[in-house]
């Protein structure tokens, strides 16, 4: 009973540190890594997906291997390999210095995300009826033209929900980048509470910031999904309904 009468939690510390400079820089770093890694990962993922469905065996094979490997090993190990393991093997001081925590994190998360995006885009491509490819080719398009003009535009609409979920997952996964020394949001909180011992308070601050970012993004995703859906009925679905649906969907990785 006594434990609950005296919970040591300094609510004022939460508001004190909420807009702290180190915390805000951490938020910014988290967003930077996430957005850049998602963009690079998406581009690479689309290429890998097109390779995976191509008739060229080496291309499909390589793509399949890449996806299997990158999804089968923990991101943390991949990060440590990039930041510590490879420099050890290369043995060059310049190389080691080139791989700053930010760059290591960006490279790792891009390469890792590409594997997940490849599977998502591949599923999107294969969800398109074969008749679409037939029609495109019959009109005189080459395979590549058909992909670009007909298949991918349709596949990408299917891909937005799972891709959006990937983005939200990555926002949170960037927290492991502290293992490479990156001062993203979680690490920023740790640095502060290592000094002032207000562990719970700082973790609450970080959590609130994560919630703000993930929720904002979920709203954005819901808007995008609504815009890209071809309107079959005249009535538009209200924004709150879309957001709630979007928040309800999505899986943790």
């Amino acid at each position: 009973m006594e434990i609950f009468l005296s919970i040591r939690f300094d609510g004022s510390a939460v508001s004190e540190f909420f807009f702290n400079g180190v915390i805000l820089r951490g938020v910014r770093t988290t967003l930077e890594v996430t957005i850049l890694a998602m963009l690079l990962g998406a581009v690479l993922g689309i290429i890998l997906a097109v390779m995976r469905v191509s008739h060229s065996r080496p291309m499909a094979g390589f793509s399949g291997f890449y996806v299997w490997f990158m999804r089968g090993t923990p991101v943390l190990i991949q990060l440590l390999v990039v930041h510590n393991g490879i420099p050890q093997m290369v043995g060059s001081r310049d190389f080691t210095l080139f791989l700053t925590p930010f760059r290591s994190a960006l490279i790792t998360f891009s390469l890792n995300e590409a594997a997940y995006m490849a599977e998502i885009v591949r599923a999107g491509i294969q969800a398109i009826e074969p008749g679409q490819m037939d029609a495109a080719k019959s009109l005189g398009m080459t395979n590549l033209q058909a992909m670009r003009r007909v298949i991918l535009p349709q596949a990408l609409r299917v891909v937005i929900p799972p891709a959006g979920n990937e983005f939200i997952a990555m926002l949170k996964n960037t927290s492991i980048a502290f293992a490479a020394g990156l001062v993203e949001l979680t690490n920023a909180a740790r640095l502060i509470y290592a000094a002032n011992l207000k562990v719970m308070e700082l973790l609450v601050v970080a959590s609130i910031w994560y919630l703000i970012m993930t929720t904002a993004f979920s709203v954005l995703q819901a808007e995008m999904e609504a815009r890209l859906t071809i309107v079959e009925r005249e009535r538009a679905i209200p924004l709150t309904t879309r957001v709630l649906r979007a928040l309800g969907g999505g899986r943790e990785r």
Partner: protein
Amino acid sequence: MGNSSSFMVDVQDVHKRFGSLEVLRGVSLQVTKGEVLVLIGPSGSGKSTLLRCVNHLEKIDAGHIYIDGQLLGYREVNGRLIEEPEARVARVRATIGIVFQRFNLFPHLTALGNVIEAPIHVRGLPRQRAIEEGIRVLEKVGLADKMNVYPSQLSGGQQQRVAIARVLAMQPKLMLFDEPTSALDPELVGEVLEVMRELAGEGMTMVVVSHEMGFAREVADRMALMDGGQILEEGPPLQFFEAAQHERTRTFLSKIL
């Protein structure tokens, strides 16, 4: 056995296998320019496959197909047949139009968008001209007022007419129809057949796979019956309907008439 440039389509002894199943067993067929050929036969007889081989959506295993005098899909070099590169085949396909049973319209584009897509990206037309021609071709099939509508908002008959317009925008010299009305509700069939009738009247070379015997009787110049991967009988519609020579023809026709 050379090519013959008076024929628009010259299919010579074509074989096609899917795995262990031989779907086309030595099919030979000629279609002259401006002719309308209606191909009938039971399901699984190879009619659709034959059509798909004619525009090289499927590769044949043996035989030759000539489109307007040109060997399709291959080049003859020193007596050997070498596969044509994909870009070349694509160019030939652009001159052959095919209308599918399930329309295959691009759902992410409007009717006009569907129609101008290939003229812009395959024929290289500037966008404005493609739009003008697109509107004209939609007028021809009676759907100019639906040009900004998406396929999902159109009826089956309207979608198929847009599909025909999409093909016409490429100014093909040959049109293939793979059971164009089979997926339509009965009351929508007429509008599509009407467009096809007009095209035939304008001298388009057409190969039509269909069960619409009324259309065949009125519009076809020749008919052919396919069964088990072979052509069993060929001739003018009158022969088919009044004096069919092959027993299978009579049996088949008696079942659907």
